[in-house]
């Protein structure tokens, strides 16, 4: 156990986490130079394209240290987005230390801080690493000051590296061995293993990634998942060396995998504790909680004939994403579909993109919503995450919506415009910290509904990319809510409705009308778009018809071609949503929330 180190790399997005992981792996020659590809731990297309990590990955790195001893270092790569902060916290709970990566020119950012706090909560040894020192814009001295002032860490202990150029990699290995303590634990105690990830494999079922705290586990053991009580017989245990490498047993301190005939990842809970059926641990490891979705949206097939195919795709998708929840939904405008719950907007986008790309589905997603809480006059409380189920306004005694605490890190010069943005988004209780010269941390309490859509994009554009943002959900607060309906040629389109704050309703309605005007192509007739609360119209826009759609010539040899074109267009028509003789494209249903039209 003394020769094991369990660590993670934490960083603000784009500070070079995946590149450093690549270098560490290359250094240990786990993979042939020829077979190496960048972002090696990010196996999904979407991860590689966006340069983000969605799923945790683990790799066991063999290392011969300068002190002459052989070590096994477990790198647990974690997702880098607030949507997945619970997964991150479980991965961190499996480590004894972290490399805190800071970009040598960008310096400390909001996620750097959030990540640091998360690591500190788990009492981890923190090794600051300044990355990208090869860049001409690198300012190591300033970043050291930030590490000292803003993070409160010993700047002299910071390592310098360029993951891209492979500079300083050996120092990092040595620091991991020297500074991060070996895992503690007792092989003779009953088994406790923390599940920090689970992945679906169509041949082997669920592959559980875990950290063994006490005891040991081997093939043939009967294990129990403590939160569900479900029992399974262990088929294989092993470690990750980019490929799965079976081992005789996993013992206290180790990080590895367990395959035990668990059908889907939904049968496991991240953060749950695995123990032995025969000799169970008295209590589970701390920190387990059920992950609850916070953002909701409906998914409909573009063509209603494809409902069954969508249902099957969702079922398959769910095998490997326990965080997605869904149930049947239906809309007058869009027909049969599913109401889905997501961990956040990135999670929503990932699900959307993977359904389209990996499962070949053509889908319409409605504007995302949060879960509202209404107390009705009979005293009952209803949770509503779908505007279609907004209660009768006459019956509502109290409306509440979820609030977040947002931490926004910006250079001082952007304080004015960012404050303005936060106030527009109904931010309250603002506080300001000055973690270092010229830098400000703004803290705001804001309704979640105001940040789920495009807040981060707006923040980025206002601060020219220098602003960073992190949040946690705090509580529900009373709010004056109304349901905003959108009418197309006088007909209400239920899938475009949204629940909004009364004071923001007009503004939202105006912007929704403008967005729809851009999204819906001109048609043969004039199209009226209206925003309404109850029966009252509060905003409108008009799409003028086009005026010319005819070819100049149509003689004997043109007729067949022309008719065929019409027949082709007719097929395309089936893929549009027609409301009151207006054809509404897919994109319009999502665009209704877009606010960046100003």
């Amino acid at each position, binding site marked *: 156990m003394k020769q094991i180190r369990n660590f993670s790399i934490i960083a603000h997005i784009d500070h070079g986490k995946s590149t450093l992981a690549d270098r560490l792996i290359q250094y240990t020659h786990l993979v042939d130079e020829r077979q190496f590809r960048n972002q090696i731990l990010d196996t999904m297309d979407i991860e590689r394209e966006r340069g983000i990590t969605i799923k945790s990955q683990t790799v066991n790195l063999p290392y011969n240290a300068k002190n002459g001893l052989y070590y096994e270092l477990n790198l647990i790569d974690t997702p880098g987005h607030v949507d997945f902060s619970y997964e991150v916290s479980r991965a961190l709970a499996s480590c004894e230390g972290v490399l805190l990566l800071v970009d040598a020119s960008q310096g400390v950012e909001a996620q750097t801080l959030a990540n640091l706090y998360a690591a500190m909560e788990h009492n981890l040894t923190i090794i600051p690493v300044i990355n990208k020192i090869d860049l001409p814009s690198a300012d190591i001295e300033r970043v050291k000051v930030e590490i000292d002032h803003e993070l409160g860490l010993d700047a002299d202990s910071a390592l310098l590296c360029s993951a891209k150029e492979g500079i300083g990699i050996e120092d990092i290995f040595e620091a991991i061995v020297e500074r991060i303590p070996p895992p503690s634990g007792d092989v003779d105690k009953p088994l406790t293993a923390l599940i920090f990830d689970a992945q679906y494999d169509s041949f082997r079922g669920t592959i559980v990634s875990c950290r063994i705290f006490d005891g040991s586990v081997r093939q043939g053991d009967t294990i129990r998942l403590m939160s569900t009580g479900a029992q399974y017989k262990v088929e294989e245990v092993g470690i990750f060396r980019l490929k799965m490498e079976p081992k005789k047993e996993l013992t206290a301190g180790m990080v590895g995998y367990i395959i035990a005939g668990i059908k889907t990842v939904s049968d496991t809970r991240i953060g749950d504790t695995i123990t032995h059926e025969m000799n169970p641990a008295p209590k589970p490891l701390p920190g387990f909680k059920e992950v609850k979705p916070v953002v909701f949206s409906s998914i409909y097939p573009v063509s209603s004939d494809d409902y069954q195919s969508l249902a099957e795709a969702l079922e398959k998708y769910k095998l490997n994403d326990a965080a997605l929840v869904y149930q049947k939904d239906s809309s007058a405008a869009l027909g049969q579909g599913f109401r889905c719950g997501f961990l956040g907007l990135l999670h929503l986008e990932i699900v959307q993109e993977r359904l389209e790309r990996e499962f070949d589905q053509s889908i319409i997603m409605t504007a995302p919503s949060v879960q509202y809480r209404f107390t009705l006059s009979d005293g009952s409380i209803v949770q509503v995450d779908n505007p279609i189920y907004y209660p009768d306004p006459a019956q509502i005694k109290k409306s509440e919506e979820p609030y977040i605490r947002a931490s926004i890190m910006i250079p001082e010069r952007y304080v004015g415009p960012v404050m303005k943005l936060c106030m527009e988004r109904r931010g309250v209780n603002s506080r300001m910290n000055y973690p270092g010269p010229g830098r400000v941390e703004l803290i705001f309490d804001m309704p979640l509904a105001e940040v789920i859509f495009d807040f981060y994009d707006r923040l980025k554009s206002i601060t020219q990319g220098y602003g960073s943002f992190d949040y946690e959900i705090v509580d529900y607060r009373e709010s004056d809510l109304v349901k905003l309906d959108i009418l197309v040629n006088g007909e209400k389109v239920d899938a475009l409705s949204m629940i909004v704050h009364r004071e923001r309703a007009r503004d939202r309605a105006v912007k929704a009308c403008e967005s729809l005007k851009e999204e819906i192509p001109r048609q043969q007739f004039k199209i009226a778009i209206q925003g309404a609360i109850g029966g009252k119209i509060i905003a409108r826009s008009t799409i003028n018809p086009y*005026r*010319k759609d005819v070819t*100049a010539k*149509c003689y*004997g040899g043109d007729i*067949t071609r022309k008719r065929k074109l019409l027949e082709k267009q007719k097929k395309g028509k089936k893929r549009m949503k027609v409301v009151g003789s207006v054809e509404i494209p897919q994109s319009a249903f999502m665009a209704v929330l877009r606010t960046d039209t100003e």
Partner: protein
Amino acid sequence: MLNRHHIEILMETVCRVFPVTSGAEVTIEANPDDIDPVKIKTFKEHGINRLSLGIQSFHDGELSFLKRRHTSGEAERAIILAKSHGFENIGIDLIFAIPGQTKNTWHMSLEKALSFEPAHISCYALTIEEGTPFNLLKSQKRIKPFSEKKEVSFYLHTSQYLRDRGYIHYEVSNFAKGPKYYSRHNRRYWQRKPYLGLGPSAHSFKEKDRWWNIKSIKGYMDSLARGIKPVEAKETLTEEQIRLESIMLGLRTEEGVDLGVIASIPRYQEILENLLLSGYVEIKDGRAVPTVKGYLMADGIAYLFS
């Protein structure tokens, strides 16, 4: 262009093989630079009684932009020549929406055309199609195509102008000095009456069948030489396709569409009401007839009924 000999063979063969009604419309299409006194005489001698001339413009700048071989002077001389040889039924083709064209130059072309009192005028909007040299120029921003607004304005203006001078706007791009000058063979296409096309790529139609000949001249001739009909493909229309074609073609002409065809489907009633309200069609003698504004939308309206 066919030479004198070709024309003789063609016309003699047609008259030998088919019964030709007296007073039948026999049209030849020609470009002004193809016309000379000998040819005109040949046309006349062999019973050709209608001449359709691809004048396109009377503005030399526009003609050279369109890469035409003739000048406006040659165009005028060709018309005069034809008239002097007794051609009563002359059709003039003009093109508008040429990049660089102004209301003035277009007007000039129209007026010049009218000065010859042609029986028929076709005014085509220049269409810049994918894969053409014009499209390349367009993508390189070296020419500026007409905006929709400008094209619509030229079109409406043209229609009004010609109607004011006694022409009937009987099809999207076609005007005639009176019903007897309507292009008879073109009307057969729009009315879905039988027609027979000879030559490479020509389309023919009878009852529910439409077929078309091999496109390449060589393939066409090889097939004939082997005694095989040079037909490339044939389609037999379903009832649904026939209905779609009648609407699509009917909406291009002043005849419009029989309300019976529209009333056959309940959903169409609502569309028809919208069309009436928008001023795209009018009801005349149990038919939905396009207005001039409606001509411009003929394809879009046919799409609604698809």
